[in-house]
């Protein structure tokens, strides 16, 4: 559990030696590092024309072309800007003079916290904060040493600025002129990093490096890849999740125009044609007998019932136990308890899943928008029947990730098709494929209880979380309680002396996956809604109760106080109602206030005010856009987000059945970024979880109805989502009847 003290002592070391650097890479991967990467550019430097590779992230050519390799995937969160900024700051080069390319698979590119080359958990900047500034400083030191050697002066007499090295005599050499020599210099054991007071690029809000390509259509997403001789594939999958093809009659499909291949695989049937539209037409002509597998009768009621039964029958594994919550609850002067639920959700990235593979005599080239380069490589290697090191992964831009592209289920069919045909094949999932074969955000059912002491103080708190376990499928084995299911609960900042969090795993028969903010979304909804319930029971203002529980947490108090002040807490405009929520996640503290009205029995969200303390910011403009993004994502979840299942088949197939927020439904969003000297926290996911509890708490303020099951505006029958004020421990009540609209 991260505390204020942890943060204070967690400051980044100012020095970083190569030894430590190697050590950190070894500790996670047992593998070789950065400087020894067998990248093509190393050999090429001998010609004197090609770029010199100064380290795993930096190439400098004789013509002063400076290229930074980014080892995290750009999916909108700004890593192609933030990570190069860290290198450029120490390299003494302007960011707009740098070319950005995606890094290949490499051991140097491990994300230590994620134990792999993984873009996720909002920690790209945290992982890179010292590592990439060190790499920039080392490269600058080597460039200066090379120039000094050429001039026969001491490096201390030289200075590097704006891509040029100068000395006291007025000589100058560009980085490009000495890069080849610099690459042969020893990597300095220790380099001093600039203090924050001397940052010139970090903290300034530089323009994004990917914007120009994203306004003229030239940005290459996975779906845009074109290779000579490339064919197009459509992939048929079992309508019932988890089913497989028993038999395929492809006679009609094979006669369709342009069709090159029909290939039955374990997970479905691939149709490859000259053009995608032809592949789709031929797919419709397939006659597949699907074996539905074990999920033929699976539906939402069965899923909910299994979670409920498990909650009642199992105390769960302990994830956090401060004091003795069970005893305190028994002795409490007053207790309260409720059950909360969240549904399955689809990621619904704007770019549907796709992959392009080119299997050839030397191995396989894979072109894919992925958050997991090594897992992609491994999946392709298996499908192509080659060793992993023969698969080159070319990471494209991602048209949204949100965790969906941590999975690799869309890769094997393209590789198998290319392998069979000896030509490049691009497989594209339709929106319907994508929405009905997602690895869904798992549902959860949580019982939450609290006790007040005789003085009316909340002195015990107990949360029992029941949900499937994503990590068991993705990164087994799991021992103990996986951190991914108890987020926002194990580190919940409220000062309650007896605090118990337990978890019981209950699988539901279908694959679930990590989705933006993962279990923070469920747990923050439950905790922040329930704290509101406690405030109502105690006759306290929800803001006052939270402040009382945060007496020793200055960073939390600051975001809460700021959001409340900016939102006019306590004095809403006539007809408007406010609700608030607070969270700590990804080492960031965040608070939101939602302002709503009730319009024809439905919520209308007018404004979300958000205050954020995410430590030091590499690029405040990107931070602000990520917070806005998370709020919009969270609002979609809060109002409408729900995947339902009938007879094992997902019922939402496109953006008509799966509603997402549109421009005319946008509330006003106010983001306040608080200055901080703390190390950077994550920003890509942290704004998502608070929207649902803030809006539902505002709904309670407006109507007296407590929403204990998302979404707020349910597609299910009335009576599914909310309970009336004062109905105590009953778990279900009425739901807003009509559909919601925004401002």
């Amino acid at each position, binding site marked *: 559990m991260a505390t204020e003290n942890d943060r204070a002592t967690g400051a980044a070391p100012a020095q970083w030696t190569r030894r430590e650097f190697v050590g950190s890479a070894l500790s996670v991967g047992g593998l070789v590092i950065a400087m020894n990467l067998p990248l093509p550019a190393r050999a090429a430097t001998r010609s004197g024309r090609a770029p010199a590779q100064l380290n795993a992230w930096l190439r400098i050519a004789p013509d002063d072309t400076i290229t930074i390799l980014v080892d995290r995937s750009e999916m909108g969160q700004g890593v192609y800007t933030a990570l190069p900024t860290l290198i450029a700051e120490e390299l003494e080069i302007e960011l707009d003079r740098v070319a950005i390319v995606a890094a290949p698979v490499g051991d140097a590119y491990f994300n230590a916290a994620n134990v792999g080359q993984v873009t996720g958990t909002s920690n790209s900047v945290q992982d890179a904060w010292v590592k990439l500034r060190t790499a920039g400083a080392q490269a600058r030191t080597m460039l200066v040493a090379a120039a000094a050697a050429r001039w026969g002066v001491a490096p201390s007499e030289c200075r590097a600025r704006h891509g040029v090295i100068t000395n006291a005599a007025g000589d100058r050499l560009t980085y490009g002129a000495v890069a080849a020599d610099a690459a042969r210099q020893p990597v300095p054991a220790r380099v001093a990093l600039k203090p924050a007071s001397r940052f010139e690029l970090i903290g300034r809000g530089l*323009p994004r490096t990917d914007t120009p390509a994203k306004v003229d259509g*030239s940005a290459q997403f996975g779906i845009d890849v074109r290779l000579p001789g490339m064919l197009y594939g459509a992939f048929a999958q079992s309508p019932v999740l988890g089913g497989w093809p028993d038999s395929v009659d492809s006679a009609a499909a094979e006669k369709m125009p342009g069709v090159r291949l029909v290939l039955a695989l374990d997970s479905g049937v691939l149709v490859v044609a000259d053009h995608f539209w032809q592949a789709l037409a031929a797919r419709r002509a397939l006659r597949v007998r699907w074996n539905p597998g074990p999920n033929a009768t699976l539906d939402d009621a069965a899923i909910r019932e299994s979670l409920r039964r498990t909650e009642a029958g199992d105390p769960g594994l302990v994830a956090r136990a401060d004091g003795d919550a069970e005893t305190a609850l028994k002795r409490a002067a007053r207790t309260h308890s409720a059950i909360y639920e969240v549904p399955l959700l689809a990621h619904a990235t704007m770019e549907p899943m796709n992959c392009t593979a080119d299997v050839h005599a030397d191995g396989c080239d894979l072109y894919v928008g992925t958050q997991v380069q090594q897992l992609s490589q491994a999946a392709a290697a298996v499908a192509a029947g080659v060793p992993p090191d023969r698969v080159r992964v070319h990471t494209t831009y991602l048209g949204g990730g949100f965790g969906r592209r941590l999975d690799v289920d869309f890769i094997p069919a393209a590789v198998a098709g290319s392998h069979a045909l000896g030509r490049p094949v691009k497989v594209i999932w339709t929106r319907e494929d994508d929405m009905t074969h997602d690895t869904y955000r798992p549902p959860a059912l949580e019982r939450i209880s609290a006790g007040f002491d005789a003085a009316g103080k909340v002195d015990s708190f107990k949360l029992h979380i029941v949900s499937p376990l994503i990590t068991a499928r993705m990164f087994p084995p799991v021992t103990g309680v996986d951190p991914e299911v108890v987020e926002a609960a194990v580190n919940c900042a409220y000062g309650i002396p007896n605090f118990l969090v337990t978890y019981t795993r209950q699988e539901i028969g279908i694959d679930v996956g990590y989705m933006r903010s993962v279990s923070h979304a469920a747990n923050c909804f439950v905790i922040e809604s329930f704290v509101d319930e406690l405030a109502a029971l105690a006759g306290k203002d929800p803001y006052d109760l939270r402040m009382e529980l945060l007496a020793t947490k200055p960073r939390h108090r600051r975001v809460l106080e700021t959001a409340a002040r900016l939102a006019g807490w306590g004095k809403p405009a006539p007809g408007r109602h406010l609700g608030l929520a607070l969270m700590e996640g990804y080492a960031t503290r965040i608070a939101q206030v939602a302002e709503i009205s009730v319009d024809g029995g439905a919520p209308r969200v007018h404004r979300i005010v958000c205050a954020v303390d995410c430590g030091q910011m590499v690029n405040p403009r990107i931070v602000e856009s990520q917070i*806005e*993004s998370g709020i919009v994502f969270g609002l979609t979840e809060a109002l409408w987000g729900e995947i339902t299942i009938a007879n094992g088949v997902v019922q939402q197939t496109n953006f008509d059945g799966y509603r997402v927020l549109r421009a005319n439904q946008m509330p006003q969003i106010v983001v306040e970024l608080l200055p901080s000297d703390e190390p950077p926290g994550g920003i890509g996911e942290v704004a998502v979880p608070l929207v649902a509890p803030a809006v539902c708490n505002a709904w309670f303020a407006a109507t007296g109805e407590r929403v204990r099951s998302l979404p707020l505006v349910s597609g299910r029958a009335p009576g599914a989502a909310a309970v009336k004020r004062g109905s105590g421990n009953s778990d279900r009540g009425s739901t807003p009847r009509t559909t919601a609209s925004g401002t």
Partner: protein
Amino acid sequence: MFEIQVNGRPMRVEAAPDTPLLWVLRDHLGLTGTKYGCGRALCGACTVHLDGAAVRSCVLPIADVGRRAVTTIEGLAPDRSDPVQRAWIELDVPQCGYCQSGQIMAAAALLRSHPAPTDADIDAAMSGNLCRCGTYGRIRHAVHRAAALARAER
């Protein structure tokens, strides 16, 4: 065989008559700036101009295009010089960027018919263009900014 006008140039395309313009642009002509998002006119990612008006190319069969001028994001303006593109750059609108070709084409068509759009005009013209990254707030600012840039040019 169809002959269509794309970005000011005549193009010959061999495709089934029901092939949506979207896939003709992307797969046959290599103009991949126009995106596929839903295939059912629900998301706006595939928005192009047909004689200057915004249309969803995913539901427009190639056989129905006729002689009308098709403009894609690649043909909007040379060097990202359209006021909409300049405003988008100035405000750093895109996040993942996948929806943005469609957003920009929708905004450019709006400004042609409404040189000084109100927020309500923007809502009416842009609410068919989904953005999962939630760039709507910046888009609204950028449309107003593009309108100002365009006015300054006249």
